[in-house]
């Protein structure tokens, strides 16, 4: 941290700077904190979404914690999180590095790669569902035996498919982040490496990847926190099925609240979801070291 920056911060304490955070704070309190308190209170009640809200102590919590569906849903949520992270991160880094080049054709490809990001999750899910229909989908239409699998009807296949579609949708986004990260790496590092005789692969592993450390943490945090809220895509694609093979925590909460009319237990699940999300976010920050938000780029 250089002196002018510290000076600016000191001046800001008495000036206009704190006020700049006000709009975000209002939204955050209005759309996150207050509903969160509401959900927390609801988790100690019995409510079917229609009638009067009856306080019922820890009944909902007891019901939720005793339900074997909860550990299963948490397990599935973590599996989706891990698998989609493991698929997305390497591909996004490679794509991002590739797109960071200044060649014309890479710019053109970048535009194509971003397309999945423009589509809504529901539309993506409906499209994949139609394409993968074992009887009337792509496989049956083109007569390709391999594609005519029961994609959404077998637990392992359905799970893999969810991870695939999630990755397909979000790799463009993370590629963009990595593209920005790679472009910030000072060219001088590569020049020095080239003089030392390092090839492109060596440069990638010895310069690009270490320099991307904080970008990786940023992107991973977004992936992990985002994967906790995967709902729309899975809901439309598999509805948590077959059985409960893809029933993540968010889906479990929805089904409990809006299909079984048990708002109390659904709120308890929501609270668990928030706690898990917070714990993961804190963990990731720890992993990144104390100054995870600071840049190590020279001059930045």
């Amino acid at each position, binding site marked *: 941290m250089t002196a002018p*920056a510290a000076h600016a911060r000191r001046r800001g304490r008495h000036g206009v700077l704190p006020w700049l955070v006000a709009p*975000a704070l209002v939204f*955050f309190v209005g*759309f*996150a904190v*207050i*509903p*969160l308190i*509401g*959900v927390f209170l*609801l988790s100690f009640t019995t409510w*079917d*979404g*229609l*009638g009067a809200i009856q306080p019922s102590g820890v009944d909902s919590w007891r019901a939720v914690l005793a339900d074997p569906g909860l550990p299963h849903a948490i397990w599935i949520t973590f599996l989706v999180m891990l698998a989609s992270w493991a698929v997305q991160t390497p591909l996004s880094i490679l794509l991002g590095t590739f797109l960071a080049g200044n060649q014309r054709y890479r710019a053109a490809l970048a535009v194509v790669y971003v397309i999945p990001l423009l589509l809504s999750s529901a539309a993506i899910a409906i499209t994949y569902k139609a394409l993968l229909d*074992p*009887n*009337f989908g792509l496989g049956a239409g083109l007569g390709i035996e391999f594609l005519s699998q*029961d994609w*959404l*009807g077998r637990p392992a296949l*359905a799970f893999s498919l969810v991870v695939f579609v999630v990755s397909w949708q979000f790799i463009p986004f993370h590629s963009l982040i990595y593209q920005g990260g790679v472009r910030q790496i000072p060219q001088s590092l590569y020049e020095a490496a080239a003089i030392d005789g390092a090839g492109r692969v060596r440069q990638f592993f010895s310069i690009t990847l270490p320099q991307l450390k*904080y970008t990786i943490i*940023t992107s991973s*945090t*977004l992936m992990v*926190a*985002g994967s*906790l*809220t995967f*709902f729309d895509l899975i809901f439309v694609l*598999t509805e948590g*099925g*077959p*059985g*409960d093979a893809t029933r993540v925590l*968010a889906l479990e*909460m929805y*089904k409990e*609240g809006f*299909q*079984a*009319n*048990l708002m109390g237990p659904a709120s308890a699940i*929501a*609270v668990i*979801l*928030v706690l*898990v*999300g*917070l714990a993961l*976010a*804190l963990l990731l*920050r720890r992993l990144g070291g104390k100054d*995870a*938000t*600071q*840049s190590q*780029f020279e001059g*930045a």
Partner: protein
Amino acid sequence: MATPISRRTVLGLAAGVPLSLAFSACGTSGPGGGGGGATYWFLSGPPQEGIRQGAVDRFNKANPDTKITTSTFLNDPYKTKIKTAIGAGQAPTIIWGWGGGGLRTWAKAGQVDDLTSWFDQNPKVKDKLIPSSFGPATIDGKIYAMPCETVEPIVLYYNKKVFDDVGVEPPQSWDDIMALVPKFNAKNIAPFSLGGQSRWTNMMWLEFLFDRIGGSEVFQAVFDGEKDAWSNPAAITALTKMQDLIKAKGFIEGFSSITADSNADQALLYTGKAAMMLHGSWSYGILKEQGGDFVSGGSLGYMNFPPVEGGTGDPSDTVGNPGQYLAISSKASAEQKDIAKKFFTSGVLDDTEVKDWIDSGGVPILKGTQAELESSQNADFVSFIYDVASKAKVFAQSWDQALSPTAAETLLDNIVKLFQLSISPQQFADNLNAVIGK
């Protein structure tokens, strides 16, 4: 300085889903539907959607000052949407539904109007309808909804052409069904089509097996809240037979990823990829509209579900929807309620709507329509449905509609697992015994 990824962002992301839950919790006030005329939500999809819309259009034309605006939804999303809308005080004036357990929760919460006295004052409206259609509309002796549209028993459809090609006869019993399964499979034709992801589609099978094996009293005991009613030996036998059929590859491969809302299950039957299908009487309209010359060419066969050897149930029994139901939101304005009642009196099941339903293969819940049914272009099918519905010793309501939403959700969930063979009949019974009466 690199852009920091703050805790705040993460918290915001993590809180994203609970938000939606809390929003619906907050919105408990507000007018139902908005100003001006009445609102009416119903299910989309041909041919039913057009008939419903037609009735509203004629009503609006005849009553330009008191118009009804409509919105349409797919079957499965609608069930959630309407519940949420009612809970949030944003229900339409006229609420389309299936009566039974769902209507009961709305009535208990005071969200729909008691129409008993209105029916007493308007005997003409009440008396033109088949009395049995009022069953699912009646909660604790009070009528909370106007029965409408058609009686919809579930029947066994089959593709005659496929049966001819394979050289077999339609099944007369459960053993026949089990004997047919390997014959169709040998020709690479699925014995039964099934839209298993929709869950209630699987349920129809259990409804019939329970009834044919143990009689209507088996499920009645569940409905009445008797302890351990699912452990009835007849129930266990039915669940075991169900899994036997699944293990014998009785259903199309991949059934658990097929949804009924997409009508892919219907397509399997009319394209000949599947030989048979257990489905509601509304399927006829879909098969006719989407199946090319499948219906007009005489390839469609249908029958009541056959008896099961050794079963004590009456083979005339059927299950399904004794009618559809229109409730009036208690949150609607007096003006909107008047429009709704006017629609009930003059709009619902007017002559054109009755004709439209019959032309689509439906049997309106109106008294004295035999002549019209027999002279219609679908005479064979509608007369068959009329017979099934009127001669049934017991016409049971679909389980998921009869039970409370809480019990229904557990039921549907476990049915899927049963069909996936991931739980045993005994586990199924245990899981459901736990929610009896809830």
